[in-house]
């Protein structure tokens, strides 16, 4: 039944991904240690979050899991959870934007802050837009021919996987204000969007169980859908805990309430 899996991933993708991951592992601590001279010491836990996030993304992009993902829907789903949900969550708590802003020379930092404040970033980091980009993107991937093309063309494969990571990150940062957040919305609004987005993920997982994407065997499809559903539940739990905890901290008695 796996006649759709024609080509294998070309080498350039693996090499580029491995290089990007290595850069992320090298530059982050370099910037943090370098800026420690001028600013507060960068906390150890942020390094750990960052390294864990890069590792999660790496496991999905290069190595044995990514190779298996080419022939197994279950392996693909594990990769999807790692790359699209777990890695973005961990990377966000490494606060890369804060680190970047304190590392850049003044003019570049101003430019970055102008970009972050731009209407474009405002638009794509709106909770509803970010949810549509990430969860909506999944519906398009699994319910159109893109899923077949992804297995035939390395370029499509690369775009899909970069989208997983970027859209996942955008979603996490639109809901959890862990890093610098220029455009803010109330807890109540974000809670509603979060519930709807996570529901979208669950609904898609169950519908994939009922009807797997083209070219996937029933058993593999059912297994992959269960992984998506229950694995997603675990990460949902972490997101909801972090979200509620940030509400708990922000509304502490005696604390001056911020604009949101």
């Amino acid at each position, binding site marked *: 039944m796996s006649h759709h899996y024609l080509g294998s991933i070309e080498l350039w993708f693996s090499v580029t991904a491995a290089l990007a991951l290595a850069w992320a592992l090298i530059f982050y601590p370099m910037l943090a240690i370098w800026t420690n001279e001028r600013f507060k010491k960068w906390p150890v836990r942020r390094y750990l979050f960052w390294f864990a996030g890069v590792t999660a993304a790496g496991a999905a992009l290069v190595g044995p899991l990514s190779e298996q993902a080419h022939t197994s829907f279950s392996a693909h789903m594990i990769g999807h959870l790692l790359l699209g949900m777990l890695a973005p969550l961990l990377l966000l708590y490494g606060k890369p934007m804060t680190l970047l802003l304190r590392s850049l020379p003044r003019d570049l930092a101003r430019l970055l802050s102008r970009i972050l404040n731009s209407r474009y970033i405002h638009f794509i980091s709106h909770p509803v837009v970010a949810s549509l980009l990430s969860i909506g993107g999944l519906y398009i991937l699994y319910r159109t021919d893109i899923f077949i093309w992804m297995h035939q063309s390395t370029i499509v494969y690369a775009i899909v996987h970069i989208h997983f990571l970027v859209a996942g990150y955008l979603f996490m940062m639109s809901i959890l204000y862990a890093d610098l957040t220029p455009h803010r919305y109330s807890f109540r609004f974000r*809670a509603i969007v*979060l*519930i*709807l987005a*996570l*529901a*979208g993920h*669950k*609904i898609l997982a*169950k*519908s994939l*169980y*009922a009807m797997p994407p083209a070219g996937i065997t029933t058993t593999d499809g059912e297994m992959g859908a*269960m992984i998506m*559903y229950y694995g997603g*539940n675990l990460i*949902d*739990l972490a997101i*909801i*805990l972090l979200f*509620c*905890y940030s*509400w*708990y901290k922000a*509304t*502490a*008695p*005696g604390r001056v309430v911020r604009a949101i």
Partner: protein
Amino acid sequence: MVSVDRSTAKDDIEKYEKRNFWSGLFFGIGLMAFVDEVIFHQLLQWHHFYDLSTPQIGIFADGLLNSFAWFAAIGGLFMFADLRRRNAVWMRRWVASILIGAGTFQLFDGIIDHKVLRTHQIRYNVELLPYDLAWNIFGAILLFAGIALLVKARKERRSA
């Protein structure tokens, strides 16, 4: 811990009365969804992850309800933690609203999910009626116990 501005003290009491109710209601809904998942899906395996006759609308409603229940369970407990640190827990009212939340979820699941949307049944290859009756009567008992307790809580003045 923190002194409350006199002009807003009364508003605060009302606000935290309400928060006791919503905290309990959310937690009750989440708790029942959790019990349903652990006992009927995982331990007994009576419920199915998906049964072939589930219509699209069933999957849709189930996903929404589950997502809301996850959030409600955790959010409800964080609201309770907030009430505790403000010394504003009203235990009887809180427990009453847990029962109301749990009973409402049970009835909703039993009537809307199982019967109207037919997401899944309580158990398969058995005479369903006694199961459905037990399920919904249990839900109704929880709901009415909660309402009774809430009425009682209303009658007493807040002591804390």
